[in-house]
C-alpha cells in the first residue's frame, strides 16, 4: 500500500495512538485507520467519540486504499523497527509490515464499521505553538480531577478579539493566563470549555510546528455539538467541549492586597518541598511573613515538625497564612519566573501567586490564586 521512513511513521503512529481509548466501547475504536489518498498522502486517524486525532504525511509512493489495524500494536511495532524504510501492504484480511529483515502480519478490522471523524471546524485563529503549550500547562494544573464535577475538569477558553484568556479551577485554586493570538476575524468573541487533560496533552504534542491553528464551533442552539480543533504541522485533533456554566471567576480574583512578598522561586520551591515532608495528607505548610523573612513550618507538636527560614522582600502587614503544599508547589512550578510574588489580604482570603513582572507596574499574564487553609484555633 505504501512505503515510508521508519522514523516518520513511528512518530506519526505514536502521536495518533495517544488518543486511542484504553478500554474502547466498541472494538473498532481500538483501531488506527491508515488511508492513502489519491494525492499520495498517508492519513493516520484515531477516534474515541470524544477526541479525534489525525496526522497527514506526504508519501513518495503509494496506492490509494484504507486499512484498520490495532493502533496499540502498530505503535509498539513501529517503535521497535530498525531505521529503514517500512513497507506496508494489505493482503486480503491481513496487513503485512516489512522493515529490513523484520516482517509482521497484522489482522485488520472492518473499515466500514469505523465511525467517520468529525470534520475540522473552520479555522478561528492562529497562536504560536510554544506560547500555547506553556499557557495551557500553566492553567491546566489548577483544573479539577474529580469526574463527579465535570465542569471543573475543563479549561475555560475565552476569546475576545486578539486576546485569549485561559482559566481553570478546582475550587481551591484558580489559574488564569492571558495571551494574544491572531484571529481570523478581528472582532471575534467566543468561549469554550475544553477538557483540561486532553487540552494539555494536545498542546504539548503540537509544538513541532511553529504555530497552532485553532478552530472553534460553539455548538450554540443549533443542536450541533460544540467542538474545538487544533492543527499544526500536519497534525490535527478535535475535542468535544464540556457543557455547563463555568464559575464567574473574575470577581473572585482579588485586586487589592495588604501585603506582598517576593521570593527567589527555586529556593522557595526547595524549602516548601523540604518542610512538607512532615506534612501529612491534607495538612498545611504554614508561612509567617515578618519583615525581611518568611518562616515555613509544617507538622504538629504530636508528630514530626519542620521549620525553615527564607529571605523575602516583604512589603505590608505581617501575615501568617497556611496552604496545601501541593497546591503551592503546583503554582510555583507554573509561574515560569525566577522571582515568585505572593500577594495577600488576610489569612482566610485568597492569595495570588505570580511571577515578579519584568517591568513594574505591568501586570503578569499569569495569575495563580490559591485558597488558604484555615487553621482552627
Amino acid at each position, binding site marked *: 500500500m505504501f512505503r515510508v521512513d521508519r522514523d516518520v511513521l513511528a512518530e506519526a503512529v505514536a502521536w495518533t495512538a495517544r488518543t486511542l481509548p484504553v478500554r474502547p466501547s466498541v472494538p473498532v475504536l481500538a483501531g488506527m485507520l491508515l488511508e492513502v489518498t489519491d494525492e499520495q498522502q498517508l492519513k493516520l486517524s484515531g477516534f474515541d467519540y470524544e477526541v479525534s486525532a489525525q496526522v497527514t504525511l506526504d508519501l513518495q509512493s503509494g496506492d490509494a486504499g484504507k486499512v484498520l489495524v490495532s493502533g496499540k500494536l502498530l505503535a509498539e511495532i513501529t517503535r521497535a523497527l530498525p531505521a529503514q524504510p517500512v513497507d506496508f501492504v494489505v493482503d486480503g484480511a491481513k496487513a503485512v509490515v516489512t522493515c529490513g529483515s523484520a516482517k509482521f502480519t497484522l489482522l485488520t478490522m472492518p473499515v466500514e464499521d469505523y465511525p467517520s471523524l468529525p470534520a475540522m471546524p473552520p479555522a478561528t485563529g492562529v497562536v504560536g505553538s510554544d506560547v500555547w503549550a506553556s499557557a495551557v500547562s500553566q492553567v491546566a494544573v489548577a483544573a479539577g480531577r474529580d469526574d463527579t464535577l465535570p465542569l471543573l475538569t475543563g479549561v475555560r477558553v475565552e476569546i475576545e478579539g486578539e486576546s485569549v484568556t485561559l482559566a481553570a479551577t478546582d*475550587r*481551591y485554586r484558580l489559574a488564569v493566563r492571558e495571551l494574544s493570538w491572531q484571529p481570523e476575524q478581528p472582532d471575534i468573541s467566543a468561549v469554550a470549555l475544553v477538557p483540561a487533560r486532553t487540552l494539555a496533552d494536545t498542546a504539548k504534542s503540537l509544538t513541532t510546528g511553529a504555530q497552532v491553528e485553532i478552530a472553534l464551533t460553539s455548538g450554540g442552539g443549533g443542536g450541533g455539538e460544540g467542538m474545538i480543533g487544533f492543527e499544526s504541522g500536519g497534525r490535527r485533533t478535535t475535542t468535544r467541549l464540556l457543557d455547563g456554566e463555568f464559575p464567574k471567576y473574575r470577581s473572585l480574583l482579588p485586586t487589592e492586597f495588604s501585603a506582598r512578598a517576593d521570593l527567589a522561586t527555586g529556593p522557595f520551591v526547595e524549602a516548601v518541598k523540604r518542610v512538607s515532608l512532615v506534612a501529612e495528607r491534607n495538612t498545611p505548610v504554614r508561612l509567617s511573613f515578618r519583615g525581611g523573612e518568611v518562616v515555613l513550618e509544617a507538622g504538629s507538636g504530636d508528630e514530626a515538625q519542620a521549620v525553615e527560614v527564607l529571605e523575602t522582600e516583604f512589603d505590608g502587614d505581617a501575615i501568617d497564612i497556611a496552604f496545601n503544599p501541593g497546591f503551592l508547589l503546583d503554582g510555583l512550578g507554573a509561574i515560569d519566573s525566577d522571582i515568585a510574588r505572593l500577594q495577600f489580604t488576610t489569612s482566610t482570603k485568597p492569595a495570588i501567586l505570580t511571577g515578579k513582572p519584568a517591568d513594574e507596574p505591568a501586570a503578569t499574564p499569569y495569575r495563580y490564586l490559591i485558597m488558604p487553609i484555615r487553621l482552627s484555633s
Partner: protein
Amino acid sequence: MSRKQQVPRLGPAGGRPADDTGCHILHVDMDAFFASVELLERPELKGRPVIIGSPGVRGVVLSATYEARAYGVHSAMPMTRARRMCPHAVIIPPSHGKYGEISKGVMEIFRSITPEVEPLSTDEAFLDVGGARRRLGSPARIGALIRAQVAERFGITCSVGVASSKFVAKLASGQAKPDGMLVVPADGVVDFLHPLPVAALWGVGERTEEALRRLGIKTVGDLARIPPTTLQRELGVAVGSHLAALAWGRDERPVTPHQPDKSIGAEETFSYDVDDPEAIRRELLRLSERVAARMRAAGHVGRTVSVKLRRSDFSTINRSRTLREPTDIAKEIYSAACALYEAAGLERVRLRLVGVRVENLVPAEHSARQLALGEREAGWREAELAVDQAVRRFGAGIVRPAALVRREGDDEPRLGRG
C-alpha cells in the same frame, strides 16, 4: 457491679496507714454518679432507692443509688426488671447536660493534680501521680485531697483506689465504694488479689469465668497456681497469658492521658419500630446534631460517617462513607448519614434502632480546613458553633433544626428519648 462479690476490706480502715510507696496509680470513680448528681437537686430523695434511666418499656438503668443497689438493681439492667426488683424506687429520666458539666469539672480537678489523667468514661479516670508526690505528698494524701475537693466543689462523693498498677487500682476503688479509699501496698498486691473471685479480673467475662470454673478455678489465687502454659492451652494464648500475668498483679499498661476517642456516635432505640423514612431521617438529623455537638465539645473532627440500622428482627447493618474533608458539622454528617440510609435500601423497612457515628477522629486543632473559592466566610460551622454557645447558656435543645422542633408535646406518637 452485680458480679463483684463482697470481700473483706483491707487497707487503712484501722491501725496505721498502709504503705503507699510505689503506688503511683490512682483510680478515681464517682459513686453512683448520675444518681448522686440528680440527688443534688432532689435532696428529699436522699436515703431512698433512686434509679436513673428512661422509664419507657425499653429503657435501661444508667445509674442507681446504693439504696436501690441493695435490691440487686445495677446499671445496664432493663428498667422493667429493675422495677420488679425494687418497685418503690423513684425513677428519674436522665438529663445528660448536667452530668457532662460536673464530669468536666471533676476531670479539671484531676488535671490540676497531674496532667497524666486517663479518663475511662464520664465518671472515672486513672491518674499517675508519680510526678506530683514532691508537690502534693504521698499517693494516699493525693487521693484524700481529690476526694475532699470533689466533695467540696460538687457535693458528691467518689472512691479512690491506690496501687502500683492500673488494674489493681481499679479493683481497689471498687472495694472502697462507696465514699472510701483503699491503698493496696506494692508488696500487698498478691495478698489483696488472691482471695478475690476470678470474675473480678479484667477480661474475665461470663464465658471465661465458666471455662475457669470447669477447671476448678474460683479465686484469683487458684488461677495464680495454674501454670501459664495450661491456661494458654485452655483459654487461648492471649487470654491465658493475660490472666496469668494479672493473677500475680502484673499489669504494665501506663496511664495514657487523653486517650483519643476513635469515634463518636449516638444511637436511638425507638419505643416501637418505625418504618416511615421521614421519621427515620428526622432521627438521623437529631443524632447527627448530637454527635456533631459532642465532637465540637471534644475538639474532634472526623472523616468517616457511618450509620447503624437495626431491623425489628435485630439483624443489623452498618454502612460508612469517607468524606473528602474531616468535619464536625451536623449538616454534613446528616447528609452523609441520609445518603447511607437511602443507599442501604431499607426505606419502608421497620427499624428498631438507628445510629450515627463519626470515625477516623483527629483533633480539630490539627485539622485545618481547606477553604474553597467563593465559599462564604461564615457557613454552617459558624451557625452550629453559635448553637453550641446558646446551648451552653440556655440548656440543651434551646436551638435545633426546624425539623426537630415539633417533637415535644406532639400528639402523634413519637420516638422515645435515649
